[in-house]
């Protein structure tokens, strides 16, 4: 995407040049008129649009939801949630006076019935399981494999299935 943007901008600059200097676009592209990086150009995009107070185009609200899209959002959601949970745990460890077994017993005494405990375990196991398995799928993509659409769906359904299975197994059997 950045590549497309860059070739855009380069051509854009050439076009404005053409009006005044009438160099052919082909030669202009050769000359590489701007030395901006993709990052700089992205920043310029945001600076301009914030300055002009432009609203963001609708995206999540209008785009047709698909399995890969939902999985990607969930992957990010579970990642953020797990990170925040770990940070909260760490902060609690620093701040709270008692020891872990003490608080665990405290929470356990409040818990009513095995169903709720099972549900809580599932609540922890599923994010971990889904994030881990989809993470493996991401690593698979990172080595360049599995980009064809049927493959994306196949690996996607595999991840969903496996994470449901493993989290249920871990929550109710272990």
């Amino acid at each position: 995407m950045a590549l497309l943007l860059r070739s855009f901008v380069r051509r854009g600059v050439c076009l404005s040049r053409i009006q005044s200097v009438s160099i052919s676009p082909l030669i202009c592209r050769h000359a590489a008129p701007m030395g901006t990086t993709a990052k700089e150009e992205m920043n310029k995009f945001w600076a301009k649009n914030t300055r002009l107070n432009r609203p963001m185009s609708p995206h999540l609200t209008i785009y047709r939801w698909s399995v890969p899209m939902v999985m990607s959002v969930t992957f990010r959601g579970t990642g953020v949630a797990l990170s925040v949970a770990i940070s909260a745990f760490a902060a609690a460890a620093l701040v709270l006076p008692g020891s872990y077994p003490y608080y665990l017993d405290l929470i356990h005494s409040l818990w009513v019935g095995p169903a709720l405990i099972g549900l809580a375990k599932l609540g922890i196991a599923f994010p971990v399981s889904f994030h881990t398995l989809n993470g493996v799928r991401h690593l698979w993509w990172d080595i360049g494999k599995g980009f064809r659409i049927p493959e994306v769906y196949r690996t996607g359904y595999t991840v969903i299935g496996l994470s449901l299975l493993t989290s249920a197994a871990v929550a109710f059997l272990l």
Partner: protein
Amino acid sequence: MASIVRLSSVCRRGVKPLFFQTTLLARPLVVPHHYQEQPHQLTAKIHASQALYAGSGSKAASMHWTAERVLSIVLLAMGPVAYYQPGPVIDYSLAAALTLHGHWGLGQVLTDYVHGEAKIKMANAGLFLLSTVTFAGLCYFNYHDVGICKAVALLWSK
């Protein structure tokens, strides 16, 4: 590469970019003459100008990307180790790996959604603080309390 060239040449004429290769090829495009006579040279020139930039940037971003993947794999490997060989070594390793993985992951989220020089700086500072507290807390827990592996085991025994 060639497909990107075609896309941009369509875009230039103010036509909505089509992402379906076959439709693109089927349209009778009024392509500027010089594009038609030197399609391969065009691609070659884009490659050439890309080479101009290849040297000027630093490799920091790409090294960071690689480091993120390496860390993910290391973290994956730590799972079974934590299960079969719990103890202080894996506890502290997990503390480090989890914190760093989370730090880099949240960093990517911030990069995606936070824009504007000042906001980016503040967000990253906040993240750094959070990760520091997280690592400190986990190490404290490992030292003064039961440790990560034992904590998970206890949680699950209930």
